[in-house]
C-alpha cells in the first residue's frame, strides 16, 4: 500500500467520522428539542373595552417546560393594538392568569387566578402542577386569561389557550 492509498483511506475514514458526528449531534439536538421549553408565543384572544370607550387587545401565552421539573407557565398580556405589539399598562390587579396542567391527557390541577401585582401590561405565573415520573411522558399547559372591565366592574374572561406538547 503506497502513501497515496493510505492518505485516501484516512481521508475517507475522517469524512465518515465527521458524518457520524453530525448524525449524533442531530439526534441529540432532536432529543433536547423534545425536552425544551415549548410555548405558543403571544396569541391574540379578544378585544375588551376597558376603560370605557377604549379597546384593549388581550393576548395570551401558554408554555410548558419539562427540563428541570414540569413547570406550567401562562401569561395574559394587554396591548394597545392588534396584533399584540404595543404593550398597554393597566392598574394593579386588572390582568389575571390561571394555568392548568395535563400529563398524558390526565388533569393535574390548576394554579388558581394570579392577578398582576402592580401597574403592568402582563400577569404571569408558573407552577409545577404535574409530577414527572420515570418513563415517557407528554405534558400540556392550558392558560385562562381575564381583564378587568371598568364599565361593568367585573372581569371579562377571554378564550383559553393551549400550549404545544412537551415530552420528557
Amino acid at each position, binding site marked *: 500500500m503506497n502513501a497515496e492509498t493510505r492518505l485516501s483511506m484516512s481521508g475517507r475514514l475522517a469524512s465518515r467520522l465527521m458524518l457520524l458526528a453530525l448524525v449524533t449531534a442531530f439526534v441529540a439536538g432532536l432529543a433536547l428539542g423534545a425536552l425544551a421549553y415549548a410555548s405558543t408565543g403571544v396569541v391574540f384572544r379578544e378585544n375588551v373595552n376597558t376603560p370605557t370607550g377604549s379597546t384593549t387587545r388581550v393576548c395570551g401565552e401558554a408554555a410548558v*417546560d419539562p427540563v428541570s421539573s414540569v413547570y406550567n407557565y401562562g*401569561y395574559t398580556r394587554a396591548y394597545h393594538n392588534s396584533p399584540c405589539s404595543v404593550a398597554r399598562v393597566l392598574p394593579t390587579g386588572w390582568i389575571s392568569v390561571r394555568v392548568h396542567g395535563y400529563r398524558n*391527557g390526565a388533569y393535574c*390541577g*390548576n394554579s388558581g387566578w394570579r392577578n398582576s401585582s402592580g401597574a403592568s401590561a402582563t400577569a404571569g405565573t408558573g407552577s409545577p402542577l404535574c409530577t414527572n415520573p420515570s418513563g415517557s411522558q407528554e405534558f400540556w399547559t392550558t392558560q385562562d386569561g381575564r381583564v378587568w372591565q371598568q364599565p361593568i366592574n367585573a372581569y371579562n*374572561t377571554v378564550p383559553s389557550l*393551549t400550549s404545544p406538547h412537551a415530552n420528557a
Partner: protein
Amino acid sequence: MHKSAILNKRPLILLPAVFVVSALIGWYGMSRAESVEPTPTKGEAPAEAFRPGESPDVSLMPEYVTALDRSGNPVGYVESRILGDSETIDMLEGWIPVYSESLEEVVGHMVDGYGFIPAGGDVEDHEPFEVIVDPDPGG
C-alpha cells in the same frame, strides 16, 4: 238485554282495557330506553384535544377526564366540560368535583392552587402549589 245490544257496547267495554295495556307498554318502553342510555365516557384526553395556540377541544375529550393527585396517582375523574369553561370553574369557586370510578360519588375536589383535596379534607392541611412569581423565560 238483547244480545245484539251487548255486542254493540263491547268496544266501549274494551276501551279501558286497551288504555291500560297501552300505558303498560309505554311505561315498559320508557324504562327500557332509560336502561340502555349510554354510560359516560371516561379516561385520558387524547393529544388531538390539545391544539397549540387554541382553546382545548373538549368535544374530543371523554366526558370525564382522569384526575391526578399531587403525587401523580389517578384518583378519579373530572367533567371535561368544566375544564373547558373557565367561568364555570369560577362559579364553583375553584372547587371542581372529582368523581369515583362509578362516577356516582364525589371523592374530592381539584381546588384552585392546591390540586386534589379528598372529600372531607381541609385546604389548610395541604400545601399550595409552588408558584414562580412573574416568570418570563419566553421574553
